[in-house]
């Protein structure tokens, strides 16, 4: 009997696994991993928190502190960049309207803030299995515990708990000064030249930078690839992982992006 493959999901793939994409894209993902078990990492959870969960929290506070929900959403849509939570203000406004919470800033803020709780819960329930946290990421381990009678205080406490860490074990893991994992990855062909994370990793190494969460966020793909166990196949939407995984002798399985699926089957969205 053949053993079930174990898949390690990159952050973008993890998101699709939660059903947060078009139905056609979700189906494409489900078919690609149907034969295996889904795993993720503390580091991927960290990226999920920073890109999505904190986005909702930030929106909640911005809306709470505005006199008009629609104006606040418009301001926010100007503010979010492509790598952040790409929540279209129109979609959010429609949703708040549907939930009957567009008129009142405080109610709308609670509706947005509670999505952070719901989404993180969804992530933790669907992706329970984690690979070892070799990079020692502390942000990815934080829990969001909310008492809805102290909603905004608890959200603030969560934001405080995921503030950038200065003395992180990731420095030891990468081993810039000890010819560690990162140096060996950078020796591989194409990593520095053809991947964003590789280029950035080389720059940080050459500058002898101390890695805090700020720098770490720019080399996320490299960390995910370095943490990947030999037993796991990395599922991703990003071409760079092909190079990174090959360099490390690890398996990878690319899946189409939402746009790619749309191109493939224009009618199935």
């Amino acid at each position, binding site marked *: 009997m053949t053993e079930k493959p174990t898949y390690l999901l990159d952050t*973008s793939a993890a998101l699709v696994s939660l059903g947060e994409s078009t139905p056609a894209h979700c189906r494409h993902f489900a078919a690609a991993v149907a034969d295996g078990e889904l795993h993720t990492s503390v580091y991927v959870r960290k990226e999920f928190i920073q890109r999505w969960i904190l986005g909702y929290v930030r929106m909640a506070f911005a809306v709470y502190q505005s006199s008009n929900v629609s104006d606040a959403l418009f301001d926010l849509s100007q503010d979010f960049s492509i790598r952040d939570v*790409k929540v279209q203000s129109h979609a959010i406004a429609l949703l708040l309207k549907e939930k009957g919470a567009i008129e009142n800033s*405080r109610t709308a803020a609670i509706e947005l803030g509670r999505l952070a709780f719901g989404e993180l819960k969804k992530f933790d329930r669907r992706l329970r299995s984690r690979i070892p946290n070799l990079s020692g990421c502390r942000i990815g381990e934080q829990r969001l515990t909310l008492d809805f009678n102290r909603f905004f205080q608890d959200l603030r406490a969560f934001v405080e708990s995921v503030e950038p860490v200065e003395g992180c074990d990731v420095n030891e893991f990468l081993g810039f000064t000890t010819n560690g994992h990162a140096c060996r990855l950078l020796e591989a062909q194409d990593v520095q030249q053809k991947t964003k994370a590789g280029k950035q990793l080389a720059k940080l190494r050459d500058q002898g930078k101390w890695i805090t969460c700020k720098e770490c966020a720019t080399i996320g793909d490299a960390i995910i690839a370095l943490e990947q166990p030999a037993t796991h196949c990395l599922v991703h939407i990003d071409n760079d992982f092909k190079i990174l995984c090959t360099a490390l002798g690890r398996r990878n399985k*690319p899946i189409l992006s939402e746009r790619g699926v749309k191109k493939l089957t224009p009618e199935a969205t």
Partner: protein
Amino acid sequence: MAYQGYSSGTADSGSTADSNQASVGDLARGTTETVEVFHEWTPQPTNSSVERVIDIDRFNPPDNVRLVSHVVADFGKGFRSPEYLISIRRREAAKIAESVRGLAEWSESTQFQVWTQQPFEQLRLLIQRLSEAEQSAECPHEGNSCEILRQLRDTFLNLGWRHYRRREVRDCVTAILVYLARVYEVSSNDAELAMDQLFDLDMDPAVIPQLSCVQDDREADVSS
């Protein structure tokens, strides 16, 4: 929050001696005409005006007219008190539980969505009622029950109402509502447990808008 809604008022007119008008101070010399107006908070405030016509004794007119406006907050406070909100939550949750239980009768109907509209609307109204009342509360009490109600409301969204055709879904949601109708205090653990139960039934208790996944020029090529 602005008070609104006048429900009763009295005009206590009459001349009073200066000595009795310490609060009016030095401005009040001679005789003073006092007009009192009472504004009471009501559970469902509406705009209203208060008008009083005071007859002045033309042969002995007052030197001052003192207007005293009383805001009677006790009445409204009662409607925002934890006890009152608990009673509202318990009563309405029991009604919604009945509505959800009643869906069984229509579970095979092609028009099922017509029937799920009722509990959905009841949930929305109860959330609105409780959250608005708690808005100015010093210490919110119904936050966790509102969260559970929001979870239940979300399970109807995005075609989620279809799940209510299933008996186990109706039983679970009814049990949650009966709990809300029974207990005095709802804890954060209750909110978390409810969410877990709804997830276990493949429902979505925290509906978000469809988001575009992060993608850029490094998008994977799956052909090779």
